[in-house]
Every structure is written in structure tokens, then in C-alpha cells.
């Protein structure tokens, strides 16, 4: 064994290194694992926050949720529409912008620093800003829409367009991240293939269709997954702009849990819905891991 190998072994065996991670592990157990377990536990009870008693109802909350609660399915549907729409639009627009920015390399730094600003802004402030833009009485958007001939009084007051209005806000804030990731991916594409294609007489469109897209596919899928996962977390902007309304047209599952849990103080039922959300999150996480690992083997 060389001296170097001996020391690598020595290094790895030093268990004092593990001390470095113990604080985080303990912390996560208290503030992450425990809350998750509590959610599962309390979902079997009817418990009002602040009341000293809770009554055991077994699967009662879940039965109610799946068989009697119409609003639950509305919120699931809203969540699904919101996330999917946002992800698709972000991918398309983000990819296009990334392609455009990939060409210009002179003022790239300036463009890049400008375009990521929306992602750093406080979502609550973003929500308020768009709320004023969408305001039926004095907002710029309903005004210009009316000028252009639309008859909507306001996108956010109309149950069938409110969700879409929120999707616009979501893509406004988060498309820049997609652009950033796509740019990083585009820059890593091997140039030789393009040259080979040019030698064979491929046009720009052809090299795009037969080289760029297939090479980008794994990254696109990865980014899509990330956006879906992050989309599940959106709360602030929806809360600020519509508060879940009109009616329940924009109540996503997040908001439903908050509604039930803090505004109605029904912790047990809120926990039941939360567990469904966690389950969805776990499934998405599993898919993400699968994608990441199959990508690793491919590369």
C-alpha cells in the first residue's frame, strides 16, 4: 500500500468527521421528520387547534376527503392544471429564450443579470404587483385587454381565466431559471456534431431538429420535473392575487391545506390533505431520482 492510499483509508476511518453532520441530522429529525410523522399521526384525529381534546376518527378524514369533499378534488384539479400549464409554457418560452441568448455573447452578462431579477423578488411583493396590474378598476392589464376588444372585465374575476392569470405570474417569475439551466445545457453540447452536420449539408432548422433537440431531451425532462416540483410549492402569489378565488377557482392544494388548517383550525383534516401532498411530493421525488440516475449511467 502506498503512503497515499494508507492516508486515504486513515482519513475515511476517522469517525470524528461524522460529528460535523450530527447537528444537521438531529435538527432535521426535530424539525422535519417529526412534523411529517405528526401529520400522519394527527390525520387520524379530529383536532381543533387550541382545543384540549381530540377525537380519534381512524380513516374518517380520508373517507371524507375522497368521497365527500368536492373542494378537495377541485383543489387537486387546480393544482394539476396550474403546474402542468406553468411547466409547459416555461419550457417552451425558456428554451426559445435560451436559444436566442446562446447566440449573443457580447452583452450576455448584462442580459443574464437583468433576466434573473424576477426570480429573486419576494413572491408576496410579486403577487401584489400583479394584483394591481390585474385590478379590474385601475389595472393596466384589464384596461389594455378592453382596448384590444376583449370583453373580460378582469382575468382574475372570471373563474375560467383566473387560474391562467396566475400561471402567467408564475411563468413571469420562474422562466428565467429555466433559461439559465437551458443555457448551461446548451453550452455543454459538443460542437463537433454540429460541424459534422454542416459538412453533410444540414440546414439550421435540420441541425436544430436532429441534433439539438435529441441531445437536450434528458435535460428538458429534468428541468420539467424540477419545475413541477417547485410549482407544487407556490403559495404566496396565489394567496396575494386571488386568495383562492373567485370561489374556489384558484384554490390549489397548498391553499386548501392553509384554509382548513389555519383558518378553520381543523388540523386533523388539514393533515390528511397534507399527507396526500407529501405523497405526491414523494412520487415526484422518486421520479426525479430515477431520471438523475438513468442520466448518470447514460453519460
Amino acid at each position, binding site marked *: 500500500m502506498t503512503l497515499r492510499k494508507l492516508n486515504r483509508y486513515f482519513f475515511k476511518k476517522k469517525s470524528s468527521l461524522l460529528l460535523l453532520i450530527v447537528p444537521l441530522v438531529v435538527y432535521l429529525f426535530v424539525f422535519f421528520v417529526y412534523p*411529517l410523522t405528526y401529520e400522519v399521526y394527527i390525520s387520524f384525529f379530529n383536532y381543533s387547534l387550541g382545543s384540549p381534546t381530540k377525537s380519534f376518527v381512524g380513516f374518517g378524514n380520508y373517507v371524507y376527503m375522497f368521497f365527500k369533499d368536492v373542494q378537495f378534488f377541485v383543489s387537486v384539479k387546480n393544482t394539476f392544471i396550474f403546474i402542468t400549464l406553468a411547466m409547459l409554457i416555461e419550457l417552451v418560452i425558456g428554451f426559445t429564450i435560451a436559444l436566442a441568448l446562446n447566440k449573443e455573447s457580447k452583452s450576455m452578462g448584462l442580459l443574464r443579470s437583468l433576466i434573473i431579477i424576477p426570480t429573486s423578488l419576494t413572491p408576496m411583493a410579486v403577487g401584489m404587483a400583479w394584483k394591481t396590474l390585474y385590478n379590474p378598476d385601475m389595472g393596466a392589464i384589464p384596461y389594455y385587454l378592453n382596448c384590444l376588444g376583449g370583453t373580460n372585465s378582469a382575468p382574475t374575476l372570471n373563474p375560467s381565466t383566473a387560474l391562467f392569470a396566475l400561471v402567467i405570474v408564475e411563468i413571469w417569475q420562474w422562466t428565467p431559471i429555466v433559461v439559465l439551466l437551458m443555457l448551461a445545457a446548451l453550452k455543454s453540447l459538443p460542437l463537433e456534431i454540429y460541424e459534422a452536420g454542416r459538412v453533410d449539408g444540414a440546414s439550421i432548422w435540420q441541425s436544430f431538429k436532429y441534433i439539438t433537440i435529441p441531445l437536450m431531451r434528458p435535460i428538458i425532462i429534468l428541468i420539467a420535473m424540477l419545475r413541477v416540483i417547485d410549482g407544487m410549492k407556490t403559495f404566496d402569489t396565489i394567496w396575494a392575487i386571488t386568495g383562492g378565488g373567485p370561489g374556489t377557482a384558484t384554490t390549489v392544494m397548498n391553499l386548501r391545506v392553509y384554509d382548513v388548517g389555519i383558518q378553520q383550525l381543523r388540523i386533523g383534516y388539514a393533515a390528511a390533505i*397534507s399527507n396526500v401532498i407529501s405523497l405526491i411530493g414523494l412520487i415526484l421525488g422518486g421520479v426525479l431520482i430515477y431520471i438523475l440516475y438513468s442520466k448518470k449511467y447514460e453519460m
Partner: protein
Amino acid sequence: MKEHQAYTVRRIMSRVFWIFFILIILSFFLIPIYWVASMAFKNFFDTFDLPPKWIFKPTLLGFKIAFNTRPILRWTINSLIISVGGTILSLALGVPAGYCLARAQFWGKRMMWNGILLTRVIPPIVIVLPVRVFMQSIGLFGTQLAVILYTAVFNATFTAWIMSGFFESIPVDIEDMALIDGCSPIGAFWRIALPLCKPGLVTVTLFSFIFTWNDFLGALTLTSPETATLPIGIMSGAGQLAVQWNVLAAICLIAIIPVMVLCISLQRYYVSGLTLGAIK
């Protein structure tokens, strides 16, 4: 010759098209920001003038009313306390953990990585409710500490994730040599690895701060009016019937300027954090 000319014309047209496209995109992303900023400096009547006024006479009226009628200073101080405290906590928890993940082999490492991934895929709403119940039961509800402890879950794991990547990228040899010379592994971490990863530290500090500063759900669920943060302040400013839009915009501006400045000035670190945070 003609073919070459046609080709050049096509190239110029495509150039112009792309530049035009980029300009449209930039305005899409920047106009709402300009809109809020402009609303903050308008007087009351200009704010709901139709057609919307893009050019106007600026005034500080909105800010004056905001500072006079609302506890802006308290909100800002609370936001600062929570953001700084939260950042320190997540650094203390996450950076050593990142080093451990990068260097040590141990049973449960796989589980640790899964745990970190879990904090990313589970929406915070799931955590916030039990944490509130917990905080109320131990009497920490309504304190800044509650929010600090809550946000650190997500910040610390993000920090550990990012830092492990940075630590992995520096060669082990230097630390090995230090070990030969009798340094303890933790000493090697503190004196060698850490100084070499200063960019990584800047990145995770920046992200922890921004994430905590922007947090709304945690503050909404865990604070009381005395400990409310700026995002809560924004929300409270819009609850009334006769909303003063310029006041609201002024509060929004106060909330977003710090993070905007941080993002622009530390842009390199911000971008690296975003890209690293997506790819494992």
C-alpha cells in the same frame, strides 16, 4: 455573388429578429418591476388613472404615508433579524454537513441524501402546520426564533447540498497532507477546505438570506403582529377596502430592493447557486 448577398441579408434579418425578440422578452420581465416602482412614487390619483400613466411626476407621498401609518421599521427589523439569524443557523448546520457528505463514507449516507432531496420535494405547507402546533406547545409561537428554526430546515439542507459539491471539487490531497502532519480531520475542514471554498460560502449565504427574507408562509403561520416581517406587512397593506396603491407599492419596493440589489451585485454567485441547485 448574388447568393452570398442573399445569405448576408438573411443573416442580418435573423440577427435583427433575435435582437427584437430579446427586447420583447426583456420588457416582459422588467415592465412589472418598473410598474411597481413607478406606483410607489405616484401620488394617489395617478395610481388609478386610466389609461395607465407611464410617465408622471414622482413624489414621495406614498413612502411618507407608509412610514407614518404602518410599522415599516418594525417589519424591516424583524425581516433582518429572521434573515440574518436564519442564515447563520443554516450555515452552522449545513456547511459542516456538506463537508461530511463530500469526504466521509458512512452508513446512512444514502439515507442522508434522500433526506435532503425530501426537503426539496415536499411543499413547506406540510411542515408549517405541525411546526406551528409544536411552537405553540413550547411557547415559541410568535417569536422570530420560530421562523428562524422553520426556514433553516430548507436552507440548511440546500447549503449542505451545494457545499458538498464545492468540497468535492477540491482535491483531497491537501487535506491528506495536513492529516499526515497531524491535523485533525475537523481541523482540516476548518483550516483548509473551508477557505478554499469561499465562493461556495458566498453562494449559500446569499441563498439562505434571500430565501428567508422572501419567506411568507412561515412568517404568516408563526409570527404575531409584533414579529411580523415585510411580506406580512405587504399583505396587511392590501386588506383594507380603500387601498392606497402607492403606499402598498412603496412597501413592496422596500421589501424587494434589498434582495434585488443582492441578486444583481452578487449575480455570479446567484447564478451558480441556481444551476448547482438543480443538478446533483
